[in-house]
Structures are given as structure tokens and as C-alpha cells.
């Protein structure tokens, strides 16, 4: 349940303005879909939310606090490429987040702790349909499988904010529909605030509680240097997807996530 507020953010690269006057109030547990033409600064905006990049001007607040100056574990991310570690197997990629938290010096778990972490990781991987591929390396997976791995890897940290940069671009429609179901389920259960960049409007409206469009109001060649893109449309999606019933929250939210996933219809992976 995390509110985000973006206050008059500008971003320049070498004097070239990419984003200008971006202001946005995001309610806790929103699913924000970001759309806009290529090169308008959507990825840049996500990188700023991640603290991988600093705004040239303006502030980004999370629950009223300024963002820390570097990426932290409460903001997870799935990039379009290079999201998973090529030298680790599927299972190791997901266990890694646990190991960082539990083992400051070696970054590696042993014995019982290791077994536990691996079991938890395997559960999440089964939930995203990778239960049968635990010991493969990412280069042996398809693009869609890699994206699902990246999602599982981010989720094991239980981030408060999840940033997705065109996460499902490489997926075929069937898998994509399955991942959409999964994504909505995860979003409901974990109560994350999600920002997702997509070029697919129907995906934006299907998943988002709110669709935000970036564009350049002035886009003549001579204006491009001096004027950046900004928010041109901000649509609440109707009907609102109100996510979780109170009884569900009372019954203990995230811990039940995996049980629910087990019951998901059309879940890929198992039985392949």
C-alpha cells in the first residue's frame, strides 16, 4: 500500500529536455499503465522512480518521503532486457534475493536455510509456470520464460512498488493472457503499487487502474531540443478494479498468495 507523488519532475540529458513538468499523484495500490510513443521518456521515468537516474528538477516522494539516492529492495523492477543474471540458473536467480538479505558477507546460504530459500523460490517459480525449468540457465529459456523469471525474481523481495518496462512485449498472445491473469492476481494479493510501460493499449486498459500517456506537445524538429514530453492524458480505468475485499486482507494477504496461484486457471508450466 504505497502512495507515490511526482512533483514537477524534469529530466534533461546534456541540455536536451526529455521530460518536463511531470506531476502525478498515485494512490496506494494503483496499477499505473504508462503509454506513449517511442523515445518519449517512459523508460527514463521508470528509471527515476527506481533511483537509477535522478530528476534534473523536481521531486519524487514515496509515502511522503523523498526517494533514496540509489535503488533499494522495496522497489522491484523487470526490464525489457537484461533482467536476469546469465550466470545463475533459474532457481538461483530467484534465491539470490533471499541470500542477499540473509547473508551479508558471503551472499550465499547453506544447509537448512538454503533448502528453505530454495523451496520458497521454487514455489514462486511454479506459480509463474517455471516449475519444470529450475536448473536451466537463462540463455536456455525463451524470451517469455525469461520475463516470467524476472517477475518471480522481483517478487521474492515482496517489493512495495513494482516497475515493469514493457515486460510482456516478447510474449505470444496466449502466454500474455495467462501472465495478465497472473499479474492481476499478484497485484491484488501483494498490494504493490505497479507502474508498467507498455505499447499495447488494450493491455494498458486491461491491467491498469489508470492509464497515463506521455507525449511531446511540441514536436517540430526545431522544438525537440527545448521541449520535452509530459503527461498528456490521464485516464482512470472504468470499472475500477477494486482489488481486495476486507475479509481477504484480514485473512492474511500475501502468505496466501501462492495457494491462490496454485488454483489459477490455465497456469502454464506444470504438466508440460
Amino acid at each position, binding site marked *: 500500500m504505497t502512495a507515490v507523488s511526482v512533483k514537477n519532475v524534469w529530466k534533461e540529458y546534456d541540455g536536451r529536455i526529455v521530460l518536463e513538468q511531470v506531476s502525478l499523484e498515485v494512490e496506494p495500490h494503483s496499477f499505473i499503465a504508462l503509454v506513449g510513443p517511442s523515445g518519449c521518456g517512459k523508460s527514463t521515468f521508470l*528509471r527515476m522512480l*527506481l533511483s*537509477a537516474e535522478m530528476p534534473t528538477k523536481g521531486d519524487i516522494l514515496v509515502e511522503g518521503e523523498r526517494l533514496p539516492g*540509489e*535503488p*533499494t*529492495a522495496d*522497489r*522491484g*523492477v523487470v*526490464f525489457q*532486457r*537484461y*533482467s*536476469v*543474471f*546469465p*550466470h*545463475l540458473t533459474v532457481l538461483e536467480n530467484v534465491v*539470490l*534475493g533471499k*541470500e*542477499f*538479505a540473509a547473508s*551479508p*558477507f*558471503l*551472499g*550465499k546460504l547453506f544447509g537448512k536455510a538454503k533448502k528453505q530459500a530454495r523451496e520458497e523460490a521454487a514455489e514462486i517459480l511454479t506459480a509463474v509456470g517455471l516449475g519444470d525449468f529450475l536448473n536451466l*540457465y*537463462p*540463455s*536456455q529459456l525463451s524470451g517469455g520464460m525469461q520475463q516470467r523469471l524476472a517477475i518471480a*525474481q*522481483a517478487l521474492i*523481495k515482496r*517489493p512495495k512498488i513494482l516497475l515493469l518496462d514493457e515486460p510482456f512485449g516478447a510474449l505470444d498472445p496466449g502466454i500474455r493472457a495467462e501472465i495478465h491473469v497472473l499479474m492481476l492476481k499478484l497485484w491484488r494479493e501483494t498490494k504493490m503499487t505497479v507502474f508498467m510501460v507498455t505499447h499495447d493499449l488494450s493491455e494498458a486498459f486491461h491491467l491498469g487502474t489508470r492509464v497515463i500517456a506521455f507525449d511531446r506537445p511540441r514536436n517540430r524538429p526545431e522544438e525537440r531540443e527545448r521541449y520535452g514530453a509530459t503527461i498528456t492524458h490521464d485516464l482512470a480505468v472504468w470499472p475500477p478494479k477494486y482489488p481486495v475485499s476486507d475479509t481477504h486482507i484480514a485473512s492474511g494477504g500475501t502468505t496466501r498468495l501462492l495457494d491462490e496461484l496454485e488454483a489459477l486457471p490455465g497456469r502454464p508450466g506444470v504438466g508440460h
Partner: protein
Amino acid sequence: MDTAAGGRPAVMRRRMINVYPTRGVALFLAALPFLLLLLAYLAGSAARLADNPDDKLLPSFASIGAGFARMAFEADPRTGDVLLWVDTAASLARLLAGLAIATVMAGVFGIAIGLVPYVRTTFNGFVAVIAMIPPLAILPILFIIFGLGETSKVALIVIGVAPVVMRDMILRVDEMPRELMVKAQTLGASTWQIALRVVVPQMMPRLIDSVRLSLCSAWLFLIAAEAIASQSGLGYRIFLLRRYLAMDTILPYVAWITLLAFALDFALRRLQRKAFPWFAGRA
């Protein structure tokens, strides 16, 4: 490796870049340059020997074989050692010690410089300048400081190899997608954990590649150091034999050195494939 699926006539129409030799042809072609060199040598040697049976420059294969056998299987009358093996052991010990020290240094410093901005600003320029010193130019200094023993020879290899490998490591760390660094941070990793679990494991196979490429210069420095001041070693021996124009033993020594270098390179390649299966399979 395979040719077109079932299509022999299509071969003519395909571009050169798409035409592959079959297995047998490939073997023959790979052997061809070696055979040609061998033939050229045999012809030259035969011609010179016909002119002058005492010619030392291009000895016949028989005398090369005899020279090799003398070095490899007979004890030297003066020392009682079988020279080839004594030389090989001495040289390999120096080479491997130098390479090991250089690899560890280059790995540790290269990764630290590549990863941590403060370390980089402190040492990047320094390494760039040090790497430009011609190692052989400081060989006399090494002899003065470390004496003529083993230390100065190992030091020469380290000084010659480490900076190059180190700079390569810095470039390879730079090359890592920024996304992976950000990703590791979002998983809660500290700098130390990123180094240990993300950067080092990804750099290991690249370090092996880099060391393989510098094997050649490592041998160069070894032989140079041995030629100048040593009592044993492959480099020492060939420079000693030069005084007697003993081509019949120099040539097999050179072939032996080449074989050792090739074997080392091959072993490193195998090690890389075995230990880092993900590296070979990456996209």
C-alpha cells in the same frame, strides 16, 4: 556445420559465407598449411644438405630426431640431468607462478576499479600509464632489485601481463549491462555482495579469455628473462645452443615450447567450458 539440407546443386548458387566444407575436407584444409610448411622445409633442407653435408642451418629430420632424443632421453654428461625435462620444469614453474600472480592481481584490481568509482578515479590513470611501460625496459631494474634468481623472472611476467589483463577486466566490467547492476540493487545487494555474487562470477570466464590472449606475451617475457640471466629453462637452453649453431636441438625445443603454449591455451579453454557452462551458451 552442416551443408544445405539435402541440396547438392544449390552449393554453386550460395554465397561464399554460407558454404561450409564437409568433415573430411575440413580436416584436410586444416592440415594443409602445416603440410606445406613441412614440405617447404624438407625441400630446402634436402637442397642445402646436397650442397654441403655439414650444413647446420636446415638439418634433416633424422638429425632433428636425434637431437630431440639426446635432450629428452639422455642424461647430460656434465650435470647428469635429462635437460629437456629439467628445462621444462624450470620454465613452467616460472611461467605458471607469474601467470597466477598476474591473474589474481588483475582480477582483483580490475574488478575493483571497474566497479567502485572511488577506486577507479584513484587508479585508472595510474594503471593506464603503468601499462605503457615496456616491461623489457625495466628488466635490468628487476635484476638489480631482485637479483638474478627466480623472483626477477616471475616479476617480469607479472609486470608484463597484469596491466593488460587488468585493463581488459575494467573494460569487461564496464560492458556489463547497467540493468544488471540496478537489478542486483533492487534485490537488496550491497557493493560487496554485488562484487561477490554478480560481478566476479561473470568476470571469471572473461578473465580466462584474457589470460589466454596474454599467454603469448607471458612466454615472450619468460624466454627473454631466461635468455639474459639464467642457469636453466627452455629459453636459456635455446640461447645457449645458438652459440653452437645447434639447429638440430633448437628446432625441436621451439616446437616443444609451441606445443606447451598450445596445450596451456587448450587447457584454459576446456576449463572455461567446464566451469562456466552458461558462458558458452549465452546469446
